[in-house]
């Protein structure tokens, strides 16, 4: 390395001028090339981290897509083609024709039982179609193949099906369909949908937002703007920080003990004379929403505190200097200028709550439920619960359904985020 020369020695002496350009002699460059190399190495490390993240995301999307499309071998008790009347397929037949099919193909007893449950005349055409499917056509999924196999091994699949299941038909099935969104839960994978679960999830998240957002922001305002630096407030702050790291299943147990059991009179709706409420069963949307609200509350508080802390003190001073009270300062300056930050934290927390499964399992979400939730005291299931339940089944076709339901979950989550971000950008002021 070159000895550093005092600047005064260089004056008027060109030969001793500092060497700026590379001249092949590394020594004259000092350690600049080494420092640059180090910088490049770190750059590649950071790039690699980004690439790893992108690869993980791509694999996830690939996995889901792979499961939600593909060939499916189905065997029918009675071929749907044999039921076609004047070229009209079963789905479009009028009610009378459908009732006739049922009468013709079912035993008298079975038909009478169904009629007694709900008279045939009172059933809608869609209900009759599904009745025909369930009882007459009785499609049975024998096997499904993922998308990659379906594309690359099409011939092998066809041969396998004709060899093993000569009576079966082979379809290219798209599991992610409109029917998936609108059909309720069913034990038949061809008819099952996630509508009940979507509604359950939306109801729950509504309760969660309603509770966690005001309470969390309020607590943050108190801790940041009002609380003095005392022993007790520091303890509260430490506990909130620790609670943010507690596993979600613990919150499930808390919810079970407090909302489902101890407060069951309220959470079951018995106190409010809700029909069908059983006072000792608090496994309702209200309990689930409150449990998830408790789960995200610490994170909402911490995020809101960060946002409040980011409001420059000069703004508060300006306000106090004009004779504003503390509340006027908070309301007119601190809150509007921290709203964007508070909302960002809330959006992230709500996304997390939307995909939370463990606490809902603990507080007892119903796994099989076919009717839509009516109010906050309804029994419920939620999308992640539904997905979990489907993946736990042995039949492969339910795994395809689960993959499609994950797509639904992702789409819903992205839409909720998008709406929240649009609202945030629209109603919050920035420091510009």
């Amino acid at each position, binding site marked *: 390395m070159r000895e550093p020369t005092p600047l005064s020695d260089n004056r008027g002496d060109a030969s001793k001028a500092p060497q700026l350009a590379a001249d092949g002699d590394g020594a004259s460059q000092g350690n600049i090339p080494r420092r640059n190399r180090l910088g490049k190495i770190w750059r590649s490390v950071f790039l690699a981290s980004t690439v790893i993240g992108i690869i993980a995301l791509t694999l996830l999307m690939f996995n889901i897509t792979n499961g939600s499309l593909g060939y499916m071998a189905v065997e029918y008790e009675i071929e749907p083609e044999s039921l076609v009347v004047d070229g009209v397929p079963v789905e479009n037949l009028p009610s009378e024709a459908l009732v006739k099919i049922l009468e013709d193909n079912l035993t008298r007893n079975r038909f009478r039982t169904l009629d007694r449950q709900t008279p045939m005349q009172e059933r809608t055409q869609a209900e009759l179609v599904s009745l025909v499917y369930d009882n007459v056509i009785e499609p049975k999924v024998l096997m499904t193949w993922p998308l990659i196999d379906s594309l690359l091994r099409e011939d092998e699949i066809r041969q396998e099906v004709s060899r093993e299941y000569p009576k079966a038909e082979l379809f290219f099935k798209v599991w992610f369909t409109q029917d998936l969104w609108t059909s309720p839960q069913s034990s038949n994978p061809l008819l099952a949908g996630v509508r009940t679960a979507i509604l359950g999830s939306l109801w729950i998240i509504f309760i969660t937002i309603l509770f966690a957002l005001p309470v969390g922001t309020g607590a943050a305002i108190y801790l940041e703007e009002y609380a003095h630096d005392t022993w007790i407030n520091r303890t509260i702050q430490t506990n909130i920080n620790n609670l943010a790291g507690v596993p979600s299943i613990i919150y499930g147990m808390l919810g079970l003990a407090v909302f489902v059991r101890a407060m069951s009179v309220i959470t079951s709706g018995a106190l409010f004379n809700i029909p069908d409420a059983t006072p000792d069963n608090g496994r309702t949307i209200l309990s689930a929403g409150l449990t998830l609200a408790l789960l995200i509350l610490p994170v909402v508080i911490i995020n809101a505190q960060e946002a409040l802390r980011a409001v420059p003190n000069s703004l*508060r*001073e*300006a306000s*106090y*200097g*004009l*004779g504003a009270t503390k509340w*006027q300062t908070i309301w007119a*300056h601190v809150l509007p200028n921290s709203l964007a930050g508070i909302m960002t934290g809330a959006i992230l927390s709500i996304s997390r709550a939307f995909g939370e499964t463990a606490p809902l399992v603990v507080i007892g979400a119903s796994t099989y439920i076919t009717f839509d939730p009516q109010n906050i005291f309804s029994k419920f299931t939620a999308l992640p619960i539904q997905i979990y339940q489907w993946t736990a089944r042995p039949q492969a076709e339910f795994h395809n359904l689960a993959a499609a339901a994950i797509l639904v979950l992702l789409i819903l989550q992205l839409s909720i985020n998008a709406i929240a971000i649009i609202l945030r950008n629209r109603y919050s002021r*920035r420091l510009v």
Partner: protein
Amino acid sequence: MSIAPVQTILNPELQSNGTLAIEARDLNLFYGNFRAVKDVNLSIERQKITAIIGPSGCGKSTMLRSFNRMNELVPSARTEGEVLFHGQNIYAPQVDPVAVRRYIGMVFQKPNPFPKSIYENIAWGAKINGFKGSKAGMDNLVEESLRGAALWDEVHDKLQDSGLSLSGGQQQRLCIARTIAIKPDIILMDEPCSALDPIATLKIEDLMRELSKFYTIIIVTHNMQQAARVSDYTAFFTMDPDRAGYLMEFGETDTIFTNPREKVTEDYITGRFG
């Protein structure tokens, strides 16, 4: 509490009865156990500009902020002694600091307009202090305040623009306009020009001279020339060995700068220390 009537921009004669605007008596200011300002007795003349000068860390800003109880925003701050405003101790238990700040306004070191429109910047202070006028009344107040701060000609056609879209010097004048809009008695200025270029500084100094016809101004400055140019009285603060600031010398600016009583003052203003 009742505080004596406050003059407006329009009736300056209300002030000229020759008494003091504000007076510190045996004032001691603490942060926790640290004494920042020690045993200060200082009388501020009405409708004059009083400059507080002194080396860094001698408690100039702390002293200034004690005049409108702004110190209390620091949780560990503590005050002993009295600050008399129209004969009342503003630190008396029954006095609400909010009322004090409404009569003793403040302009800060860094321009800090609200992230609102220029119009709202001025209107807000009046609104929270119970402005009961019409829309036209508010328009008048905004114009009057902006004219008072020599900013009207530059912003009259863009009152709905953000206050933060202005240049640094304009922002500082907007802060002054915002302060005079609530018609205070005294304006405290904490190094108002330290973030501004010389031209903007000159404008603020001219404005201060103009405002001193109606208001009492107390300014903290690091710039000796500024103190000499703009102020009528100068208070020189310095530190004792345990770092507590105290008032070394107080008098008319001309005297302080040409014929100081103390050797330390002379050393400081001639640039030999500080």
